[in-house]
């Protein structure tokens, strides 16, 4: 049995400082940072749909493949960065947050994989490219909206819930306006909404009341 040398008596202010320091450290390093996640997606959507919007003037069939490639790379980079960020923060964490985060993360994967198959079905049924583009944008924004609302409910985060409602609205409007306006809506209202999300997350972080979220925001 090793005996620990007694530590110097702890003064009260130092004790308070220790509690605050560890609280901040845990909140800012052991849970995912919504500023990072919303920031990544604000960029991916803002730039990605912005590029598509810029080249969509002559109709969806004349859009250069390079623009789609840029969009694809940005979305893929968003997925990879989000997963890496969450995995790094969650390393060594176990319990409710890990399980919730894992199921929530898989919800995104499952929803977007099913959406791809669904869109494939629409294409096979003969939906023209314009309809396909509108469906792809609307479904994507709708999934984001629903999962943000669910995330708001899971982590009792009103800001995220409100963002989910906004994204559901974006989904509806992006489909109603048709081409090429759909890309403008996805870029400005969708990407912009996520940028607002990043800003709200920053305010919450500053106030020390950011939700302790384990999974993918």
């Amino acid at each position, binding site marked *: 049995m090793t005996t620990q040398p007694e530590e110097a008596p*702890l003064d009260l202010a130092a004790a308070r400082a220790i509690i605050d320091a560890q*609280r901040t450290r845990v909140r800012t390093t*052991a849970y995912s940072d919504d500023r990072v996640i919303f920031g990544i997606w604000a960029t991916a959507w803002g730039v990605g749909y912005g590029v598509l919007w810029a080249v969509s003037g002559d109709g969806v069939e004349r859009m250069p493949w390079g623009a789609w490639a840029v969009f694809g790379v940005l979305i893929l980079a968003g997925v990879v960065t989000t997963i890496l960020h969450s995995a790094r923060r969650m390393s060594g964490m176990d*319990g409710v947050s*890990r399980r919730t985060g894992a199921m929530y993360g898989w919800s995104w994967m499952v929803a977007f994989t099913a959406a791809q198959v669904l869109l494939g079905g629409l294409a096979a049924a003969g939906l023209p490219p314009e309809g396909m583009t509108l469906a792809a944008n609307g479904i994507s924004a709708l999934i984001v909206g629903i999962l943000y609302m669910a995330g708001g409910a899971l982590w009792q985060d009103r800001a995220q819930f409100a963002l989910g409602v906004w994204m559901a609205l974006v989904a509806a409007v992006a489909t109603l306006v048709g081409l090429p306006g759909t890309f403008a809506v996805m870029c400005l209202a969708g990407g912009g909404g996520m940028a607002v999300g990043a800003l709200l997350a920053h305010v919450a972080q500053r106030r020390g009341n950011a939700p*302790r979220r384990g999974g993918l925001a």
Partner: protein
Amino acid sequence: MTDAELDPVIHAQSRLRVVATLAALAPGDRLSFPRLQQLLDMTAGNLSTHLRKLEEASYVTVEKTFEGRTPATYVELSATGRAAFERYTRALTDLLGGAR
């Protein structure tokens, strides 16, 4: 001697750091030993010693388990520990003159 009201198990620098870290987790969360060590910048030996003392007071639960074939140790603040920490922070706030 105002410190008399402060729980002596918690009121020592290293143990307070351990308890404060675990208390900062969301309810139902626990940390692996290495991750806790990293959040505390403590040596493994040091952390083990402090955990043993906290475990004796039933303030923390230490579970040794296996992830595949790798042994893993998870540390969690117990309900008793959480209550004790809440009492401790309340006493601390009172002693500091109510100023948070």
